[in-house]
């Protein structure tokens, strides 16, 4: 009994379960469509149950990143171990992953009719790999999962995507693969540094964190940009975002949902865990740069959305814009911004995931995604239209729905992240939320991001106006004239069926719940995020030496620096 309990409550089970079902699917014969679908559903639902078990006993409100840690030795000569752990952030993102699993399987019931085994097996493998990314506590293990997510998605896009899928899949793979190799170099640098200092070879997060934080500013800068090379591409941040719209547009619906819902979060999660956790000094140094990039992304991608005629591409670009808020919140470098950002990861996964599902449903019926060819669908598909409006509003950030809370917190974090105000607060003018620390951004950044909110509202409402309201305009005369939807006509009702409503309802419920009462999650996030904020604050107060790396200097430097730096946060902020 005890052993069974241990197994059920162990983290790797969440990775192994989908993989196991993927193996079972491989064992099926190609003709057994029903069995394959049932296995796929089981392979995603059972992890949900597992997650509920874990979540039920999880201590949500403590900031320990290594909670439930479990380590097996694997490759001792190279310091690589199978090490798993979870904190609140990992748990939330794993929750998002396991939730989207069954939804993706159910969403593919009618859309995917060929090579079912390949499709569902890779979907499950992707599920396992994504869970692994969030649970890994060993750098190489993390990297293994992080890279391995590319393969299933490459295959899903390539085999089940639309017309331009080959170019999209190749671009997606090459972009992310290139970036993450540089990231690997950065991570390895920290491990080498650790070995030089401690004569122990390890890739354990916890052990490397301390080493990384004590590196000189110059080293931290290099490591920071190396890490960013991979993570910024994954997010994707403004100048390196070009792969995303293409991949999204060409991917099958479930692929888009996973891509928007979870895969992009690997980037922000990476920034949170590694950039902020490992090289806080460099983060402080480059926070304004990153914030400017994210704001450019927010506005620029928003404007691009406005001129799209392909509705899927529109939502894809909106992801770029939304993730800009997420990164802005991260680089606010205070507890509010960080919490908002993590919440944003979840919210974006829910609402944008749902939008992709809705667009997929339209595409299955009309075989087009062009805004020019359809309009006023509220008359033809009232249920679909209600969901569409609901999730678009969640995405716009309507108060009362989930998007609002996190967007507001990200901007508020950026607003508060201002050294002048902090100095004022020190002098006795309280009135700021707890967790306010000096920072590198400030009201201007929040203002600029606020412009982005307006742009967001513009393009999303423009989309709604085109597609949902107005005179009814169905593509191709009536529905059902596509070349290969002989089956679809038989299977799909005109408006949404029970299966489709069933997969949208949980998302809608969560959007509403997180919008109305986000407090439990925020409370659970608070210890983790304020722990990171504290690390950053510590790094502000004891900046690492900047010059050429010198071991001895690096280790004594924090003690050498008098506390005088704290007294002049203004000058520090002002100089940037």
């Amino acid at each position: 009994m005890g052993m069974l309990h241990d197994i059920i409550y162990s983290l790797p089970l969440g990775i192994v379960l989908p993989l196991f079902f993927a193996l079972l699917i491989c064992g099926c014969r190609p003709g057994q469509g029903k069995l394959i679908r049932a296995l796929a559903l089981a392979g995603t639902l059972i992890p949900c149950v597992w997650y509920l078990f874990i979540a039920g006993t999880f201590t949500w409100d403590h900031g320990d990143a290594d909670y439930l840690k479990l380590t097996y030795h694997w490759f001792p000569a190279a310091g690589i171990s199978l090490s798993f752990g979870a904190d609140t952030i990992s748990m939330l993102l794993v929750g998002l992953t396991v939730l989207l699993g069954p939804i993706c399987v159910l969403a593919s019931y009618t859309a995917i009719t060929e090579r079912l085994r390949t499709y569902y097996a890779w979907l499950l493998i992707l599920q396992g790999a994504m869970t692994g990314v969030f649970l890994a506590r060993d750098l190489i293990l993390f990297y293994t999962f992080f890279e391995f997510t590319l393969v299933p998605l490459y295959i899903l896009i390539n085999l089940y995507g639309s017309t331009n899928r080959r170019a999209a899949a190749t671009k997606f793979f090459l972009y992310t693969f290139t970036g993450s190799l540089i990231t690997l170099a950065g991570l390895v640098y920290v491990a080498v540094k650790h070995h030089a200092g401690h004569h122990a070879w390890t890739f354990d997060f916890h052990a490397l964190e301390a080493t990384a934080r004590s590196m000189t500013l110059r080293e931290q800068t290099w490591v920071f940009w190396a890490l960013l090379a991979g993570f910024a591409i994954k997010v994707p941040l403004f100048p390196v975002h070009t792969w995303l719209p293409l991949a999204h547009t060409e991917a099958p619906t479930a692929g888009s949902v996973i891509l928007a819902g979870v895969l992009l979060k690997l980037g922000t999660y990476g920034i949170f865990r590694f950039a902020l956790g490992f090289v806080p000094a460099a983060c402080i140094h480059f926070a304004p740069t990153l914030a400017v990039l994210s704001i450019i992304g927010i506005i620029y991608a928003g404007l691009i959305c406005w001129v799209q005629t392909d509705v899927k591409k529109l939502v894809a670009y909106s992801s770029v814009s939304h993730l800009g808020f997420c990164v802005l919140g991260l680089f606010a470098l205070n507890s509010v911004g960080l919490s908002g950002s993590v919440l944003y990861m979840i919210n974006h996964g829910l609402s944008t995931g749902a939008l992709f599902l809705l667009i997929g449903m339209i595409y299955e019926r009309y075989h087009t995604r062009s805004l020019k060819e359809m309009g006023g669908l509220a008359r033809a598909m009232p249920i679909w239209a209600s969901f569409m409006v609901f999730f678009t509003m969640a995405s716009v950030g309507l108060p009362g729905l989930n998007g609002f809370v996190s967007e507001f917190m990200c901007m508020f974090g950026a607003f508060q992240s201002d050294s002048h105000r902090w100095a004022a607060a020190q002098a006795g003018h309280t009135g700021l939320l707890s967790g306010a620390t000096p920072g590198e951004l400030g009201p201007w950044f929040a203002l600029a991001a606020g412009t982005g909110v307006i742009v967001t509202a513009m393009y999303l409402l423009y989309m709604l106006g085109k597609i949902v309201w107005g005179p009814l305009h169905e593509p191709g005369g009536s529905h059902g004239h596509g070349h290969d939807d002989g089956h679809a006509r038989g299977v799909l009702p005109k408006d949404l069926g029970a299966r489709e409503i069933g997969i949208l309802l949980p998302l809608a419920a969560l959007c509403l719940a997180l919008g109305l009462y986000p407090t439990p999650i925020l409370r659970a996030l608070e210890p983790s995020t304020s722990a990171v904020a504290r690390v950053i604050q510590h790094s502000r107060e004891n900046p690492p030496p900047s010059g050429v790396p010198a071991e001895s200097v690096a280790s004594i430097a924090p003690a050498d620096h008098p506390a005088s730096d704290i007294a002049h946060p203004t000058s520090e902020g002002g100089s940037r």
Partner: protein
Amino acid sequence: MESKLTLLWPEIILFLTACCVMILGQSRHKDSRNLSPWVCGVGLALSGLAALYLPGFLAGQPWTIRADKLVDTALPSLPIYGKVLVAVLGLVMLPLMAGVSDRELEAAADRGRPFEALRSTRGEFYSFFLFSLTGVMLCASADDLIFLFLALELTSLPTYVMVALSTARNRSMEAGVKYFFLGALGAAVFLYGFALIYGATGSTHFHDITRSIVASAGAHAPNTLALIGVVLAVLGVCFKIAAVPMHFYTPDVYQGASASVAGFLAFVPKAAGFFAIMLLCSLVGWQWTSDPDHPALALFGNAPHLPDALRTILWVIAVMTMTAGNVLAIMQHSVKRILAYSSIAHSGYMLVGVIAGPGPEGSPFSRNGLAAVLFYLAAYGIMTIGAFAVVACLDKKTGSQTDEADDIEDLRGLALTRPLLGWTMVLSSMGLLGLPPLLGFFGKVPLFTAGIGAGEIPLVIILGINSAIAAYYYLRFAYVCFIEAPESLPSAPKIEPSPAAGARHITGFLSMVGVVGLVVIAGRIADFAAKGGTYDAPFIKAAKPAEDHAAKPGEPAGEQAAAKEPHEHGG
């Protein structure tokens, strides 16, 4: 330290087997002729076991792998790892060689014609296969320039013949001739280097050369003549590993040879070349620091490394090799040519490990670039042989002509039509790409760690970028095999299994299992590689103090004592 002969038992076993096979292959009886691959297998297995355990037996500790000094070089444990590696991969490659020679002759014999022993090449082919492997083993245990030269030539000479024999077509003959002439050029270059080393140091024995080089060294670089010698020797050996200035033959020769032999060429001479390069670099050692005014200093920092001249040259070669290999591979259509360029690129990756060197004394596996190279050699060998095996298993019929299915389009839908071959191709190419969690990734990580550990950060970044470029053509393999539907046009060439495909599948299967399965025991292999890459630093350190007061010739006694003493402590 054992007497040299006892350490050479693995080579002796292989050599004797090769002689047996040479006679066996000419036999009148078909059954005896067919025995030759089996005899080869037994010989390889025996010699592998001998390499692994014989030193232990001789020291009275049966069934233990000895890690101490076996030969009198700066890489004292290289022989064990090198020989075991060669024996294991030789066994993996053996089924791939099935059906390469005597196809028509055997077919004629089956039709009732008497077997023409004079025209048969089977005996030669298998014995040359073994001779070449013997040569690699000897390279790993070389402790003398002449020895090394003979070992390198023993590796290469049989391969020229194997290439020429590998198909009945003219292109094989052409490839063989091309390979031979360029090989001879390479040999001339490194022989010239050896001569200069001898001229500068007055000895051909590695131990004496090192001692002499260190004794006559300046503050930041060894004696110029010796250095030129080592540089030339390394350049010559670049031919064996297909590194950039000497790489031109690679795609042509691989394409001209049959896929089986091309797979052999992609691994065997490369292994010999890397053993030789490591040994040659160890002659001068990774013990030098740059002149403070040297421009390289700003780029690399000033940790102990190879002498500046050698390091700069290797650096440039490594970068050009990786880049040229990967960029040119993108433009190819022939699978064998792509794999040839990929093998060039991989040589570049491994050179990073050589440049990084063994790291500070007592470095673990992850800081030891030589161990990383040894590990990578094993991983690379398994992956690339698998990819070649896939080509070797398939024939393409266009009209009445039968040829190897060498065009990348011939692999369309392979994972659907022939899952075993298709997956072998997909996994080999993804492994070569270095995608986690496959074997190639765990080969690449130590190169990253060792490179960064040695301060070669720009080199590691270039390595990373090159791996990304490589993604483009490795993805094409995966795409063609897995994603594209098999060709259904009637005019398309018909793809069918080649005559000896049954046996060759075994190599493919072993390679596929290795790419995935060896990851589980990667830790063990890494330990073994770390053992093999042990660098006997005291060797040079002991000689170094002598540099100050014994720089003048004529005082060898003190030096010798200084060199000998800690040297024995190390043993």
